[in-house]
Every structure is written in C-alpha cells, then in structure tokens.
C-alpha cells in the first residue's frame, strides 16, 4: 500500500501554499497521506494540515529548528517517515529541497527526484516529468529502486483547493539530532516582513538591468504595489546590489510559476527563463524587439520602460477603481 508523507513547507511558522497544493493533489487522488511539519512554533498548523487531508500530523517543534539545517530537518523527516510507514515523501521545491532530498535518499535508502512538474501515479509506480537543461527539455523519469520515493514538486504543478482546519491526530516527534559541525548563525539580511513571498504571489513584477540602477528599481516598485504583486529581479540586478538575493528569479534564484509574471527590462537569458517560463501569463516590456523574453511573452511591449512604467501604474489605478 502506498502512503505519502507530505513535508510541510513553512515561512516563519506558517505553512505556505505549496504544501496545500501537495495535499490537494493527494486528497483528490484518494491517496493515504500523513504530513510532517518542522520548525519553531509550527504546532499550530496541525489542524490546517489535517483539514487538508493529513491523517496523522507529525510535529517537530523546537526553538533549535527555527532555521533550516539539513541534518536535524532530515532526521525529523526520517523519524516521521518510519513511524508513518511512508512509501513516498513529497517536498515542495525551495532553496533547500535539493539538499534535503539528497540527504533523505541516503538516510531512507531511497531515491530522489527534484523539480517535478507532473506526476503520474499508480500506487508506488511513479512517472515524474521535470524540466532539465535549463528547461530546454522535459525529462520523464521513473524509480528503478524499491526504496522510498522522494519527490520535490514545484509550486504551481498542482492547484490548491484549501479546506478548513479540523482537529488533527498529532504525533510529537522527539527533538531531532542536529549536526554541531554545521551551525546556522542567523540571517544576513532578513526579508522585509512586508514583502510578498515570490513563491506564493499570484502576480510577480520583475526588473532587469534595463532599469539602469536603484532609481529605476524605485520607479517600478510602485507598479508591483499597485498590482498587489511580489517584486523580483534578474541576476544582473541582484549582482549589482540594487535588489537583495532573495528577489532573484531564475535557475540560481527562485523558480516561480505565478498566474501573471511582468518582466521589465529583462532580456530573457535562458537561466532567467528557466525560473519563470512556467508562469501562466507573461507580460514583458523591453526596448529591444529581438529580446528573447518576447519568445515567451503573451503580451510583449516594445517600449522604453522609463516611459511605459508610469503609464502602466496610471492604467492599473484606473482599472482598479
């Protein structure tokens, strides 16, 4: 019998939407599902996870788990997987899912596949589809090993249909063992608490080197605000220090798939496209008609962004009235 263990993805102490996407998928497919949530102050999410389909919710709630570290997080998941009898462990793709997935593959003697965008399931026979080579190809893979299948799914692969909380069956996990050799010392620059999370936003506005500098960034920021959008950037902008690392969209930054992605002054290099071409609707502003971003844009504006953006802001205000 197959049994899925969904690893909840949290921001602060709150469960993020990608977790509800995974639970919606297993609930609709009628798959036997448990969940595990790890962090500090995360116990409060148990009923939400139960309401969305987790039969048992395993909780590792400890001050020492406030920040991600591979060893204790992997240890908690291994504990939960063993107690639940899971045959599959599902993670949401994030900065740390690759480290975690690899570690779990060894500790659970299973196999790991990252960046999954489609899953065909027949019990534990799994066919996963994932982009490879900077999304220039799709790779269909299967598991050729009897061990646990560890699958990291990209946000947006499944739709979330959130359900109301209900009283959970909770199992508290023993505090997992950390690794003293890798000590997380804290954050260099905390994300602005007011900022919308790129991984959860319905709309993302991103800026590229075309904005020329910090003033250009500030020209575009009100557009993101007006649209209720998260604010992202290309690597060129992040490397120039105009925006923080946490804003970087692309293969080395965040991989996102919002309903609407608005690229302003971004050329559309493959590493950037690899991070956003799964968006449902793409809008681009670029003064170069041959910019590769137009090959993925549903609506392309060949225009000077310094002229276009103020008008966009004005138009958004009009339509929002």
């Amino acid at each position, binding site marked *: 019998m197959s049994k899925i263990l969904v690893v909840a993805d949290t*921001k602060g102490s709150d469960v993020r939407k990608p977790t509800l996407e995974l639970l919606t998928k297993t609930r609709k497919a009628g798959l036997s599902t448990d969940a595990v949530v790890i962090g500090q102050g995360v116990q409060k999410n148990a009923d939400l996870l139960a309401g969305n389909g987790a039969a048992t919710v395993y909780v590792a709630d400890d001050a020492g788990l406030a*920040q*991600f570290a*591979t*060893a204790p997080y992997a240890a908690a998941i291994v504990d939960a997987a063993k107690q639940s009898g899971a045959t599959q462990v599902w993670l949401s793709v994030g900065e*740390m899912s*690759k*480290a975690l*997935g*690899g*570690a779990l*593959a060894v*500790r659970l003697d299973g*196999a790991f596949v*990252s*960046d999954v965008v489609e899953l065909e399931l027949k019990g534990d026979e799994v*066919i996963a589809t994932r*982009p490879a*080579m*900077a*999304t*220039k*190809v799709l790779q*269909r*893979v299967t*598991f050729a090993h009897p*061990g646990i299948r560890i699958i990291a799914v990209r946000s947006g692969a499944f739709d979330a249909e959130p359900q109301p909380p209900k009283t959970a069956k909770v199992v508290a996990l023993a505090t997992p063992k950390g*690794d*003293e*050799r*890798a*000590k*997380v*010392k*804290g*954050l*260099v*620059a*905390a*994300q602005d608490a007011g900022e919308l999370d790129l991984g959860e936003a319905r709309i993302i506005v991103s800026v590229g080197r075309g904005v020329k500098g910090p003033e250009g960034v500030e020209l575009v920021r009100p557009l993101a605000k007006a649209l209720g959008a998260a604010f992202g950037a290309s690597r060129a902008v*992040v490397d120039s220090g105009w925006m923080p*690392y*946490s804003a970087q969209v692309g293969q*080395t930054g965040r991989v996102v798939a919002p309903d*609407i992605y608005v690229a302003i002054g971004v050329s559309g290099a493959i590493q950037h496209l690899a991070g956003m071409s799964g968006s449902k609707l793409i*809008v681009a502003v670029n003064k170069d008609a041959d910019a590769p971003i*137009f090959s*993925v844009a*549903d*609506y*392309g*504006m*060949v*225009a000077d962004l310094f002229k*276009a953006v103020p*008008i*966009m802001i004005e138009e*958004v205000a009009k*339509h*929002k009235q």
Partner: protein
Amino acid sequence: MNIVVPIKSVIDVELNIRVQEGKIAKDGMSYIISKWDENAIEAALQLKEKHGGEVTVVSVGPDRASESLRKALAMGADKAVHVNDPAAEDSDSFGFAKILAKVAQRGPFDLIITGKQAQDTDMGGTGPILAELLGLPQVYNVIKLESDEPSTLKLNRLGHQGQEMVELKLPALIAANDSLNEPRLASLRGIMAAKKKPLDVLKLADLGLSPDEVGAKGARVRTLEFQPPKRRAAGKKFEGDAEEVTRKVMDLLANEAKIFA
C-alpha cells in the same frame, strides 16, 4: 587545505538542444565544464591560495571529460582524476555520488566543493548524497565564503529565509551557487603547466565498484525519455509609440486577459 572538486563535462545548454526519438541529439554539440562547477573550482583555488594544500579535480565521464579536467588544471588545480568507464555512463545522482565517494576516500581531504546542480541534469542531488555517504556535514547553495582559519568556513547561503550565515567545521561538503565568485580564465602559462600535471585515469574496478552498482544498471532514477518542452502559444508583440503601445496592452490585459477580474 586539501580540496576535492567534482566537475562534470556537460552539453553547453546555451546551444540549440534538440530531442530525437526520446533522446538528446548529440551531433554538433559542444561540451563545457558545468558552470556551477567552475565556481567550485574557483572557490577551491582561492582557499588553496590562502591556506596552502592541493586541489584535486575529479570527473566521471567519457573521453571528453579529460578536456574539462585539463582546463581545470590550467586554471590552477594540482591533480586530476578521470573515472572513464562505459559502465559508469548514465549513472543517476546516486550512482555518481557513489563513485565520487570512492575517489574522495583514496586520500585525506578537508573539503569537497560541488556545483549546486549540473547544467544538463539540473538535479542537484549528487553533492548532498555524496556528503551523506561520507558522513560529512554539508551546506548547499553557498554564495559567500570566508575562511580565517583552515579548520572552519564562514559561509552565506541563499536559504529559505534569505541569506543565512553558517559556520562549518571541516571536513565538510559545500555546493556552490554562481554568485559565489567569478571563475578565472586559464592563462597561457597555466595551460602549458597543465600538460605536466598528473591526470589519473581509473576504471570502476580500480575503485572497488562493480558495474551493477552504478551506471544505467544501478540507477535508482531511470530516464524513460526526453521530450521537447511544451511550447507556449505564440504571444502578441506590440511596437510603435511607447504611450500608445502601453495603453493598448494595459487595455488588453484588463479586457482580454482579465487580470483585474
């Protein structure tokens, strides 16, 4: 500080990639060191320049992998190991990690630096699996590295909540993000010197591995096929006066795409 850097020779993904009958067409392709692995080499060379020691580059792959290794030697690595065995081809991340673990264990080392992911697979599993197989602590997605003393690294990684600081005791494994550094180019002198540096060629048997454990046979994750990506429906592009273009598209976004609904 003795550092091992696993590097993969990959198809240059900037080229036009074609799929034929479920496989990647190999004709006309050129191969490069996977970009993030170049960042790993650079980080290793900088640590060596600071603390002394040796940098060993390792690649598992067919004949062409030796070109990537020579390039790394020309950049400044001291030794290279080439695991060239047909039975190792088509390994998955777990298989490559098993082979790399055996190579690393041939001598004492303080640090292993991998790329965050290989540009052909984009999987990102090999480094983390390798660390676990060797019982090493690991830090993934490293964007900044300082080391005042050779026993400890002070790292920033791009993590879940932004830039996180981690202090790492060696021996350990880290996986490099491309923001970590700007890889150096090989100098002419470096290229000449590389010709005289040792490049060991090994078979699986030399590492005590049987062909069933790795390669296509031992793969825990098996590729069924490759497909071309799903094409997006052709979009619309508007040119002309900036104000007209902008108002036109905003109108379409509102009334056709209904983004404000």
